[in-house]
């Protein structure tokens, strides 16, 4: 369970550039939730993610993960429990390393010591088996430097990396926005599949209203640094894009 209590973030406080990115945001994300997030540019969605991931400090308020106060915890410590995917596929993978090395980066150090081999034959089989479920032929390209793959393929591997060690919370920051429609659809399909399979609690920022409505169990709408709407279950299922566009102006 992820809980934010009265979180505010102000950039450049006390100067002319002062900007309130988040204002008194309180929200509880329950285990197993798949939350989609909508909001116009500058509404505070990315700041919200950055606060959860520990990339930027809160100005006031607290962040809890499973009752533990993680407000002051460093980014790389939190990353053990919080996975994150970015819009740019190049962000989530190391281009010069091979597919299997990228996967090993996410997986092997949790299995073995720092001085043991990063990619064993058993790992290779394990990776191939997992990649096969994506149905993109990636299992045959384990040795290929990942920079040579397409954006969609890279993002699929990044997604796989995020879930090989299932995180408590998975943050998806417009992770399909930079892909062509077909790849975007495929990645979203895989996202749903993996989230269900590994029972991950996930939050997904998107600018695509249809995606926000068709996926997930809960919808948050950000406006001007606040969460202005929060729909769950049946209420969310009943929403139509026409309804949602109206909330952007609220």
């Amino acid at each position: 369970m992820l809980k934010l209590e009265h979180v505010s973030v102000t950039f450049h406080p006390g100067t002319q550039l002062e900007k309130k990115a988040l204002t008194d945001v309180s929200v509880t994300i329950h285990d197993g939730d798949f939350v989609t997030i909508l909001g116009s540019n500058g509404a505070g969605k990315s700041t919200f993610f950055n606060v959860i991931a520990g990339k930027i400090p809160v100005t006031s308020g607290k962040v809890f993960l499973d009752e533990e106060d993680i407000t002051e915890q460093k980014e790389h410590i939190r990353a053990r429990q919080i996975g994150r995917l970015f819009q740019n596929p190049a962000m989530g993978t190391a281009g010069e390393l091979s597919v299997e090395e990228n996967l090993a980066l996410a997986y092997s150090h949790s299995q073995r010591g720092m001085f043991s081999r990063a990619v064993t034959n058993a790992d290779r089989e394990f990776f191939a088996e997992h990649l096969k479920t994506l149905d993109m032929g990636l299992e045959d390209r384990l040795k290929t430097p990942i920079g040579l793959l397409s954006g969609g393929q890279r993002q699929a591997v990044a997604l796989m990396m995020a879930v090989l060690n299932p995180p408590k919370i998975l943050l998806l920051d417009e992770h399909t926005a930079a892909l062509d429609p077909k790849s975007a659809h495929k990645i979203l399909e895989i996202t749903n599949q993996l989230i269900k399979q590994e029972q991950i609690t996930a939050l997904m920022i998107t600018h695509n209203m249809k995606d926000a409505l068709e996926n997930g169990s809960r919808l948050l709408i950000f406006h001007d640094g606040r969460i202005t709407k929060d729909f769950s279950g049946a209420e969310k299922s009943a929403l139509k894009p026409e309804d949602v566009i109206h909330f952007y102006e609220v």
Partner: protein
Amino acid sequence: MTVNVLLKALELGLILAVLSEGVYVSFRILNIPDMTVDGSFSTGAAVVAVSTMAGQPYLGLCWAFLAGCVCGLVTAFLQTKMKIQPLLAGIITMTGLYSINLRIMGSMPNMPLLSLDPDCASMFDTVDQPLLVLIPLIAVLALVLYWFFKTNLGLQIRATGDNEAMVRSSSINVDRMKFIAFGLSNGLVALSGALFAQYNHFADVTGGTGMMVIGLAGIIVGEAIIQKRTIGFGILSAILGACIYRVLYTLALQFGVPSGDMNLISALLVAITISIPYIRKKRRGEYA
């Protein structure tokens, strides 16, 4: 060029291959040019000189490696904890090291490697042919490096150099990776400096000047010959390149190029080679 001269060039080439491996770790793997090298190379020489005077030439090589590691840690500290730009951090450490190296050598700008027992003033005195110790040494070193960069820790360091932003958002401590890599890199550089001093039987406080570019030249020559960029071939190309570069260097000297001009030639070689990919891209762009 006589066989003897060629052998000498190969010997020096193998010694400087260790330097190239060190530069490879910072420049290619971590993707950060590290000027500490010019200082830590001399540190290695200074430490081994003092240790040899105390009758410990072999242990001196270990001390040199460790002293080099410390130099690297200082640069890593300046970069990561003090947020100083990488190049400047290296230059600061290098500048400070000049004084420290002088202190290590008891304020003597150069120092012969003498020992009470004339047979063990250096590792190279124990064999007739220096290549007999150099080849196994470099081979073991290359294998250890290869093994290291295939471990989880090695992989994390490589990823840090490749995509720092991604590594930052993962559970890997980026700063720690830089400390380890800079430590290892400068440890190797200092070891090379120590071998260089033992080979020449003297240590010079200015001996490190230009060594970063010399190390880089080895890598670049190697990469021109071995086109593959995987970690194994990378390590190999640094060794091969350093040797070939030294042979070419010796050839140039044989043809009467003044030794004082050699640094300029090395600098030009590195500058031109590094800019070739950009020039090619630009020309392709123009004609496309």
